[in-house]
């Protein structure tokens, strides 16, 4: 399973766009890139998943360069409620290997 590296923490302000980058240099051909969000006292919640190029849904965008050795989660116009830990996962199949995550703090 590919190891991921993310910044430990990030600060932002309401209304700003937040980009969290994850490195996964030894990603395998079959691996997908998935991001989860976790609030205190809750289980992780799926945000977005991609394989290459760009994926967008109603809450986020995921940018994946051609070499797939990194990915960037983009949160448009964050609010205070986006304060959470964001996990980047790389793998194929059902078992999830969580890295350290990025603790995002959104300030007013």
């Amino acid at each position, binding site marked *: 399973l590919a190891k991921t590296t993310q910044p430990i923490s990030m600060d932002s302000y309401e209304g700003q766009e937040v980009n969290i980058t994850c490195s996964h240099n030894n990603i395998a051909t079959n691996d*997908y890139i998935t991001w989860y969000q976790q609030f205190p*006292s809750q*289980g992780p919640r799926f945000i977005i998943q991609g394989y290459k190029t760009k994926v967008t849904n109603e809450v986020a965008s995921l940018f994946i360069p051609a070499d797939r050795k990194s990915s960037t989660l983009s949160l448009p116009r964050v609010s205070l409620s986006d304060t959470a830990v964001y996990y980047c996962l790389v793998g*194929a199949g059902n078992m*999830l290997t*969580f*890295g350290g995550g990025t603790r995002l703090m959104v300030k007013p």
Partner: protein
Amino acid sequence: SAVISQKPSRDICQRGTSLTIQCQVDSQVTMMFWYRQQPGQSLTLIATANQGSEATYESGFVIDKFPISRPNLTFSTLTVSNMSPEDSSIYLCSHDRDRDTEAFFGQGTRLTVV
């Protein structure tokens, strides 16, 4: 959306005792997973539970300490045996509805061992 219910949501237990955590899914799923999240840390997979077979444990976790049951396709239990303060963590179950795209997690069980 998928619903996973965990019970209890939290408990405080005496060292040396055991606690069984229940996980109920609102539909049949092939695989269920148990994770541990120590205070301020990320999630670590404990084991994978398939119905009708023994659970598969990850490195560092053993059946004697964390016995798991999977009696049917909607239910699983994790027991934390002979507890010590080091077992104080949040324990979470999850499933993926047999898809690779998205995993669903319960709200977790916050265990404190005193």
